[in-house]
């Protein structure tokens, strides 16, 4: 079965030189794709989680009684929303990366920065998407009636408890569709990590077609296909979540 599959693509490359699906029949290229997928998954997963956390915390801070905290959050949002994420990525890696300490590697002489390029990609993309998530959650929070929070207040809930037990669960439900969109964008934006040589899927594909120009169309196809699947899984998961959070008689 697998044999026929491999043989088919080897033959296809022979017959039609522009359709060289080299990664399907050459194990070394396949290994590159697998590695690329792994990194794309790691980036996506880490950034989705982190950016949602940033969104939740940021939205909480935006309702802080301190004017300075609110201004700080507002400044953060303005900066990350109004500048290109690719430039942010380069800035984090090349500018901030210089100031983070490095440790000496096991060989005794190489300097390994404590935050790798993968680390910087995760940080920068998370803050980028997080800025939008703060806004998204804030809109959700504003949709929670003041009177519902007041009821929690009157029952003795602290500000934190009211946020965690009442405001967030309700705000989440309102925010899900917008959050969904932003996370889809985030997953697609992980390809920009190629700019700082994170070996994710786009990086691997570009390397393959640089080495084998005949593999360019197939690798592009693979890229589209992979992201359709990846984003499809995310959207499927989000819809499942939305369903699980459905409350009978609420929000119709």
């Amino acid at each position, binding site marked *: 079965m697998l044999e026929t599959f491999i043989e088919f693509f080897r033959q296809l490359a022979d017959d039609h030189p522009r359709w060289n699906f080299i990664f399907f029949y050459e194990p070394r290229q396949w290994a590159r794709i697998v590695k690329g997928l792994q990194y794309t998954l790691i980036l996506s997963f880490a950034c989705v989680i982190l950016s949602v956390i940033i969104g939740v915390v940021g939205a909480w801070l935006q309702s802080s009684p301190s004017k300075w905290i609110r201004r700080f959050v507002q400044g953060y949002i303005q900066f990350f929303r109004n500048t290109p994420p690719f430039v942010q990525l380069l800035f984090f890696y090349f500018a901030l990366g210089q100031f983070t300490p490095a440790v000496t590697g096991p060989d005794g002489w190489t300097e390994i920065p404590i935050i790798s390029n993968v680390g910087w990609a995760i940080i920068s993309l998370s803050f980028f998407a997080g800025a939008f998530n703060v806004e998204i959650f804030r809109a959700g929070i504003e949709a929670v009636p003041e009177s519902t929070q007041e009821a929690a207040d009157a*029952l*003795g809930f*602290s500000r934190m408890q009211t946020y965690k*037990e009442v405001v967030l669960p309700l705000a989440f439900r309102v925010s899900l569709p917008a959050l969904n969109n932003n996370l889809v964008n985030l997953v697609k934006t992980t390809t920009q990590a190629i700019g700082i040589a994170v070996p994710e899927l786009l990086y691997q594909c570009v390397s393959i077609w640089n080495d084998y120009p005949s593999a360019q169309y197939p690798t592009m196809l693979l890229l589209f296909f992979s992201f359709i699947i990846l984003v499809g899984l995310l959207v499927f998961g989000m819809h499942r979540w939305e369903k699980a959070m459905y409350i009978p008689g*609420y929000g119709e």
Partner: protein
Amino acid sequence: MSTQSWTDSQPIVSIKDVHKSFGNLEVLKGISLDVMKGEVVCIIGPSGSGKSTLIRCINALNDIQSGSIEVQGIEVNDKALNKLELRKKVGMVFQQYNLFPHKTALENVMMAPIKVLKQSPADVEKRARELIAKVRLQGKEESYPGELSGGQQQRVAIARSLAMNPDVMLFDEVTAALDPETVKEVLVTIKDLAEEGMTCMLVTHEMGFAKEIADHIYFTDRGVIVEHGPPTTFFDQAKDERTREFLSQIL
């Protein structure tokens, strides 16, 4: 604790010369009243006269500019007020029920004792089920607020407040948003409570109910208490022109 000095012979809620403004608008212009333990007090008066504001000041949902409000010896008008201690003593029921829409009736009742009082969930659940039975909602434990009628939601809200074991219950026009048919079931619940000796302060437009249940009635207009007295004398022998006019309109 400051409550140690408080005894049953003193008013459980003692309001003295309270002034409250929203910006330039003075809403409470020197309100004084005392409520003894076990008493049922009704506050009536035209819309906008400051009834809700007064009720909300008692559990510090609004702050006051001057005067004093003491609940079992806790001074509410105190910068260092421990709001949690106050809110353990004071239960509040709102006109719009304000249930947590993402929690079932049972969970609504259980939430505060578990999260705020840190009581064991098993004990709380047992008590919550009893409270739901008490407000005559057996069988609705697993329903969400959106699946309940207004009257049913309001009774869940009452049970939710009672779960905190308050010493005083505040009701702010709790039947005003209800269909006429369901008003009664809520009033019956409040009456049960009053008969068990719960101290209650009610803002209401249900004059028949006030007459039946209240130990004392206060009539407020434009931020002052115009007239007050036990229901027998209050309804039949109102002295102030404003009171008589209000009563003639509403009765």
